[in-house]
């Protein structure tokens, strides 16, 4: 489904193809930078991928790889010093949403795109009752207060909050962390969005709750039929939940494909390093957990060529040349010039 989009022409043939419906989210060569005191920080560079309708796409990457910037760019909520410097974001059949006015962008949020954020403790307003907050996000509907509350109760019941009528009158501090996250999921899905962005929704939860929350999310996603962009640094969760995945490093997509393709045949050295570092995949006792040596490059002066070369065990002088993406198998793309010789 995904394609290498070196040129606009190739992209056009994709969308005009009668057999492939437009994806729920299509990001094309997106670049975002921030003006900082130390110079322009290029947080995202040439990010291209799409989330097909009704499927779950996972994004993995370490802290600082641009996951949050990507979410904020999609939501149109970049900080004041941030700017989309190139590329396009399309939502379903719509035109490029980076060109929308703030007002038009706001009309999409909560209706077409919903978000569940990482920190369930801080995601709800502490001084307003849960019912009031759930009612407020339905402000665009013409329902009466009572009808809105009935919708909220129904949603809370769907995410298996016991005694939802009573819960509506309570405040966030009266809910446990897992319950708050389920309330957040209920709120995000209430308007039946086309796209749900889940920003590490289970990171702050303990392991048993994590599994339950993921199962709930999957179940609701199938019922509503929305596409999900699921951000996580937990590879096990991605493997469990997602259909497709994207590996990001320093603001670039280094590898993308189906979960099966990437886990079976990780083709970018960074992906392989990331998989090697996953404690769940260790088979014997080790004294020190494996890490990737080195640190993220300075995003104000991005390296020429491959962005991972400084930390890559396989780097050679050619890695300083501009990188082209390599298709490993159909739909599985790695942004590394040595892809084929390494995986072969």
């Amino acid at each position: 489904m995904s394609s290498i989009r070196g040129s606009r022409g190739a992209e056009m043939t994709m969308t005009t193809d009668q057999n492939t419906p437009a994806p729920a989210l299509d990001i094309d060569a997106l670049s975002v930078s921030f003006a900082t005191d130390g110079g322009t920080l290029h947080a995202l560079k040439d990010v291209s991928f799409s989330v097909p309708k009704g499927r779950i796409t996972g994004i993995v990457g370490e802290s600082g790889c641009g996951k949050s910037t990507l979410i904020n760019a999609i939501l149109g909520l970049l900080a004041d010093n941030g700017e989309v410097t190139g590329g396009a974001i399309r939502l379903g059949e719509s035109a490029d949403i980076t060109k929308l006015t703030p007002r038009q962008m706001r009309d999409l949020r909560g209706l077409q795109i919903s978000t569940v954020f990482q920190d369930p403790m801080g995601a709800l307003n502490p001084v307003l009752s849960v019912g009031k907050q759930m009612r407020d996000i339905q402000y665009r509907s013409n329902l009466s207060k009572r009808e809105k509350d009935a919708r909220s109760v129904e949603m809370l019941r769907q995410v298996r909050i016991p005694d939802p009528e009573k819960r509506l009158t309570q405040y966030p501090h009266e809910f446990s962390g897992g319950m708050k996250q389920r309330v957040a999921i209920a709120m995000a899905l209430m308007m039946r969005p086309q796209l749900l962005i889940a920003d590490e929704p289970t990171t702050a939860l303990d392991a048993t709750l994590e599994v339950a929350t993921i199962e709930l999310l999957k179940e609701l996603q199938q019922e509503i039929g929305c596409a999900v962009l699921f951000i996580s640094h937990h590879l096990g969760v991605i493997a469990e939940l997602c259909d497709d995945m994207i590996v990001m490093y320093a603001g670039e997509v280094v590898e993308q494909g189906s979960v099966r393709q990437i886990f079976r045949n990780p083709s970018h050295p960074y992906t392989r390093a990331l998989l090697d570092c996953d404690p769940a995949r260790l088979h014997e006792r080790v004294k020190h957990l494996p890490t990737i040596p080195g640190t993220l490059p300075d995003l104000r002066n991005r390296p020429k060529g491959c962005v991972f070369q400084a930390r890559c065990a396989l780097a050679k002088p050619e890695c300083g040349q501009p990188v082209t993406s390599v298709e490993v198998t159909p739909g599985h793309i790695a942004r590394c010039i040595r892809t084929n010789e390494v995986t072969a």
Partner: protein
Amino acid sequence: MFAYAMRRLGLGATIILVAMMILFSMIYLIPGDPASVALGPRATPEMIAELRSRMGLDDPVLVQFWNFVSSAVQGNLGVEALSGRPVLTVVMEQLPFTLAMVLCSITWAVLLGIPLGCIAAVKRGGFVDRVIGVLSVAVIAVPSFVVAIYALLLFAVHLKWLPAIGAGESGNLKSQLMALILPSLAVGLGWIGYIARLVRASMLETLEAGHIRTARAFGLPERWIIYNYALRIAILPTVTLLGVGIGHMLSSSVFAEIVFARPGIGKLVYEAISTRNYPLVTGAVLVTTAFFVLVNVLADLVIGLLDPRVRASFN
């Protein structure tokens, strides 16, 4: 909420008791014998001794303190030294003038300070923010009596828009309100600055919170987010500040009432101190302390109403 209110009231009562103790010790320790002061230089030792025993000054300290507290609780603050009228009556006659002025000052501070703070936070770093910042610091820095004198010169003497002195004709609400404008502005002006700064700071902090991001991600209108979602939280420190600020405004009322020749507690205390009318000083200070404590209990209750987490922590 009831348990919370009861606890706050209990704490308030304790503070008043401590205040009484301090007041009592101060009177007790002040050099000079109230009986001889009251009787004047030509009193005979017998007359002084007789008044001393009538005033209870010969009793042991603890008995005197107990008498002071128990009669104060019953509303008996003694009689003032000069006219012999009950202190409570005299204080209560003056209290409304001061309360009206303090209330009016708070109104200035809240009505101007909160919106200015919000605007500064929303336009952070911009021209408007900087102008509000400079003005806020300026009004905090200028002493109130300077504001009072210049406001008097400009609006009363030069422009003749507002009365210069007095509290207005009794029974004429408009004239009373006109007479309130200048003194309350002089007392409240600095507080506009304080509140604008505080609201700006707590607003900026609140706008960074995750739940504001959630509200934005759900497409709620920005104005709604600021006034219904963020301000409800950002206002909490201001409520506490106002509770404390009332004490400050009560003491500012001394100068304001003198400069503007208004009746009120401040003027009463000033005159009572000049004439060494100690029962009146004690009574007036006790009443204002009680009022101050009451306002702070109220501020705590308002915070409990606004913030469910505070209520929960007391249940």
